[in-house]
């Protein structure tokens, strides 16, 4: 990558053109989502459709928060998701490290067992899980979701983290040992910073999985105060009417935290990216 181009050729190159098309591919349906959330119910059914809402109405947003308790759902989703993701990252990183870099027997069996667990269709597990939770009396609480979310996202997180741990050069532990650090210190101060892209990946996936999970949230939290966003949105309207505008509005709001998270951590990610390129 030592070539430099002059003038407009600096901007117009293969990479940037591709980036442009990718952006278009992602952004167009999002554009549709966002503008539809500002359309009035009458305008939703226009044919040909309105490419820009007129009138431009924020009624859907106020309806989501006022008529439906979207604020409560948002809070619940946030708490449950953040807790589960934190737990997954903590447990998963050490486990991923162990299964990737420490000489354990039976690694293959363990990894495949974890695979089997993440593979089992959720629908079959709902009823027995409900019985379990009922027995322990934890229905309609935060634990009702945090515990299964952690358990079901750990296998995938372990697979991801292990994969990235494997990519770290083997000599890293040696460096730690030479410096006189114990295994835990080695992991914390040497391995962890290098595995950050992996942690970010696992974290973002866990967050998204928990944020958008529907089936368990529906079954384990039946009282309105404990409901999460996906379940809350499933209640907009009536059995015969689907208020698309309000649903889209709520969805736009639900997507905001992800954007914020990535924005906050983008320095992390970018430094991870550049350090990875320089390393070696």
């Amino acid at each position, binding site marked *: 990558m030592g070539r430099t181009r002059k003038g407009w050729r600096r901007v117009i190159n293969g990479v940037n053109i591709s*980036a442009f098309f*990718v952006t278009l591919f*992602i952004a167009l*349906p999002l554009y*549709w*989502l966002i503008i539809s959330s500002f359309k009035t119910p009458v305008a939703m*059914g*226009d*044919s040909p*459709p309105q490419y820009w809402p007129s009138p431009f109405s924020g009624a859907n947003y106020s309806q989501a928060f006022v008529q439906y308790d979207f604020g409560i759902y948002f809070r619940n989703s946030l708490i449950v998701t953040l807790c589960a993701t934190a737990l997954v990252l903590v*447990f998963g990183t*050490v*486990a991923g490290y162990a*299964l*990737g870099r*420490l*000489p*354990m027997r039976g690694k*293959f069996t363990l990894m*495949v067992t974890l*695979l*089997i*667990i993440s593979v*089992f*269709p959720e*629908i*079959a*597990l709902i*009823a*027995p*899980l409900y*019985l379990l939770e009922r027995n322990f009396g934890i229905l309609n609480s935060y634990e009702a979701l945090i515990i299964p979310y952690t*358990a079901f996202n750990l*296998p995938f997180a372990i697979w991801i983290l292990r*994969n*990235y741990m*494997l*990519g770290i*050069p083997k000599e890293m532990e040696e460096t730690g040992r030479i410096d006189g650090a114990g295994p835990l210190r080695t992991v914390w101060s040497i391995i962890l910073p290098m595995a950050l*892209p*992996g942690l*970010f*990946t696992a974290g*973002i996936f866990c*967050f*998204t999985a928990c944020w*958008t999970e*529907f089936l368990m949230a529906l079954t384990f939290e039946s009282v309105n105060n404990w409901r999460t*966003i996906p379940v809350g*949105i499933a209640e907009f309207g009536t059995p015969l009417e689907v208020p698309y505008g309000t*649903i*889209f509005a709520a969805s736009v709001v*639900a*997507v905001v935290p992800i*954007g914020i998270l*990535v924005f906050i951590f983008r320095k992390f*990610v970018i430094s991870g990216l550049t350090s*990875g*390129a320089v390393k*070696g």
Partner: protein
Amino acid sequence: MTSVSSAAEPAPASAPLVGRHDVNRKRMARLGWVFSAPALIFVAAVTIFPIVYSVVMSLSNVTVTGNGFKLSGVTGSNYTLVLKNSTWHYALGFTIVYTLITVAVELVIGTLIALVLQRLTAGRGWMMALLLIPWSMITVINAELWLYVFNGIYGVMDAIFNAVGLGHPNFLGTNDPAIISLMIADIWKTTPFVAIIVLAGLVMLPGDIFEAAEVDGSSGWSTFWRITVPLLRPTLALAVMFRVLQAFGLFDLPYVMTGGGPGTATTSLAILGYDAMFKNLSFGPGAAVATTTALLVLLGCLISLRTFRVQVGKEDM
């Protein structure tokens, strides 16, 4: 510390060194178990009972009563019912083809996106944030959005097709277009998933190999195929494996967009299982569908691991 001194000692006296190395290995192994125990115990505690219960359900006659599920007898009849069912055959074929196509497309597009992201100089952070938005949408909302887009009367896709003279195709009401619509909705939402996994893998590749290749005069594409891809194999395998896993569980999109229709054209295995269990309240056959699906997916994952020639547990320290 003993470990420090053993590393600093010179090479001779191999016998004691080997002995120490062995002890070290054992200690490392134990440490490994200590590290992984919390995660493993947690997962086991929560998932063992439901999975075992499910498998047991699939092997008995289950009746739903007001006082719980009554399981009676050990029988393979649920499985014979499922295996002989023609809708299940269709769902199996449909789900497999759907998985193959969407995963392949997403792999290609996702890798391309990752490559672009890696080389992008300005706006990389923004693009990543943008990429993550479709992925973080609730699957049901995504389905509702595309349902709105593909609506046969007031959908934007219909307007576009009409404007370019392709008339009014009934996207969700005709077999193949319905399947393709589902795929588009899926691909749009989950390609970022593949892109991020591959990107993180790309980023961790050591840079000096690429510099050496460039010095050797290797062109972009040839570098890609001969160096990048082989190094990326474990990452690609991971991405494929988990996408296969998710694609097999295809549920939300057909549920919202087509209800499994037109007819049964978009009935996936998960929809079939859900209908059996929660509409017909036949939990025995439903559990059989779930278990067979799990076995099939496991097979699929193991096959994709082999395809990428990734071995687990053979790396040693």
